[in-house]
C-alpha cells in the first residue's frame, strides 16, 4: 500500500516558469505557462516559498521561517493550493 504523504512532508520548489514579485502584503506570483496569477497574502508565506528549494521538506522550510505550530495547517493548505495550480513542483528530497 502506498502512503500519501502530506504536502508538508514532501520536497518542493518553485516552478521554473513562475515569477515572484514581493509586495507589502506578501507577494504576487505569476505562472507564464498557465498564465495564472496568485497572491501570497502573508510575507511569512513568501519566506517559506522562497526557502522551499533549500529545505528537505516543506515542514522544515516552515520551521526555519518561524511558522508557529498552530499556524501549520493554514500553511499546509496554502502550499497545497500552490501545488495544485503548478506554482510549486515536487522534487526528489
Amino acid at each position, binding site marked *: 500500500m502506498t502512503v500519501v504523504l502530506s504536502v508538508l512532508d514532501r520536497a518542493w520548489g518553485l516552478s521554473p*516558469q513562475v*515569477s515572484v*514579485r514581493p*509586495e*507589502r*502584503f*506578501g507577494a*504576487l506570483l*505569476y505562472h*507564464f*505557462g498557465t*498564465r495564472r*496569477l496568485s*497572491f*501570497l*497574502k*502573508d510575507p*511569512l*508565506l513568501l519566506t517559506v516559498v522562497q526557502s522551499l528549494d533549500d529545505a528537505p521538506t516543506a515542514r522544515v522550510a516552515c520551521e526555519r521561517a518561524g511558522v508557529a505550530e498552530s499556524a501549520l495547517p*493554514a*500553511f499546509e493548505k*496554502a502550499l497545497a493550493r500552490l501545488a495544485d495550480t503548478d506554482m510549486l513542483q515536487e522534487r526528489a528530497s
Partner: protein
Amino acid sequence: MTTTAIPLVEHFSQGLDAPICLTWELTYACNLACAHCLSSSGRRDPRELSTAEAKAVIDELERMQVFYVNIGGGEPTIRTDFWELLEYAVDHHVGVKFSTNGSRITAENAVMLAGNDYVDVQISLDGATAEVNDAVRGEGSYATAIQAMEHLAAAGMKGFKLSVVCTRENIGQLDEFKAIADRYDAQLRLTRLRPSGRGADVWDELHPTAGQQRELYDWLMAHGEDVLTGDSFFHLAAFGDALPGLNLCGAGRVVCLIDPVGDVYACPFAIHDEFLAGNVRSEGGFQRVWRESDLFETLRGPQSGGACASCSAYDACRGGCMAAKFFTGLPLDGPDPECVKGNADLLLAGVAEGAAPKPSGDHSRPGAVPVTLMPKIQMRRPDRACDENPLAGLAAGRS
C-alpha cells in the same frame, strides 16, 4: 492565511509599486474601422514611439517586474517592428498577450507563436456569425478571425483567447461563442462595451439592455472561471454574488494604459486629458508616472461613494466603471450608466445632447467610420504621410 490586517482588495485600491499588468497600444493604425473602437483607431500617429523608445519601455517594465503586457492598438501587428518588439519583451521576461483582428496570423506566424510560452494571442470577434460580427467590425473580418484561429489551432496553440465585446446584438450568441472557442481549443473572454472612443457613437444602439445584463450575469455565473472577463463586469455584482475576479476598478491602481505616443492613462477606456497621468518620454519615464503622478495618487486615495454611498449594492459594485460614467456625461461619484438597480436612468435623462465629454484624440480614417452600423473599409489615396492604408506593402493584404 489570517495575518493580513487589511483585505487584499484594499491593498490594490491603494495602488501597487508597479502595475500587475498593463495595456500598451503600439499604434493607432488599423486595417479595420470597428464601429465601437475604444481608441478611435485608423491612422498611425506620427509621434508614435520609435523602436528604441519602445524597447526602453520594455526595459523599465522588466525592472519593475511587470509580469506581462496586453498589447493592442490599432492593429499592433501592423507595426513593422512588431515581431522584433515581441521577441525583445520575451527575452526581457515581460510576457506578452496581444490583441489582433487576425489579419497577420498566417500559418507560419501561428507556428512561431505556438512555440512560445511567454506569448499569448487574443483574437477579436464581436459576433458568432459573420452577419453580426461584420456589421460592427467590417466586411470580411469574421472570416479573417476564423482563419487566424484555424491557423493557431493547427499549430497546436492551446488556450489562446477568443475575445468578444458584449453588445445588444451578440448577447444572444454566448453559447455559440463558447462553442467556437471550444472548437479551436481557445478560451472565451467576454468584455464590456464602453462608451469610449468611437464606442460613444454607437453606445445607445449597442449597449446591452437591462434584460440582457441579467442574461449575461446568469450566463457568467453558470460558467465561472472557464470564461474570462478581464474583471470588466463588476458592475453586475450588484445582482447578487460577485463574479470571479477582483471586482474592483483597477484604473491607476493595478492597471493603466500606455498609448502609441507614450501617454499614460489610468485605463484603456479612458483616453481623455482628464485621465492622462504623464508620458513615458518625460524624465523618470514610466516608473515616475506610475509612482508619482498626481492623478494616480488621487485615484489611490479614499473614494467617496457619492450618490451611491447609501445603496445596498455599493459594496458589491463600487459604483461601477469610471470611464463608462465619464463618457456618458455622468458624475464619477454616482452610478454606472448600466447600474442594474436602474439608479442612473434619471441622471442619464438629464444629460443634454452632446454634453458628454469627447475623447481627446481621434485617429479614425476619414470616411472609414460608419454612421450606421454597416462599416465599409474605404481604401483611399493617402492625403498625408500618416494616412496611408496600413496594410500597404503587405503581399497578402485583403482589401
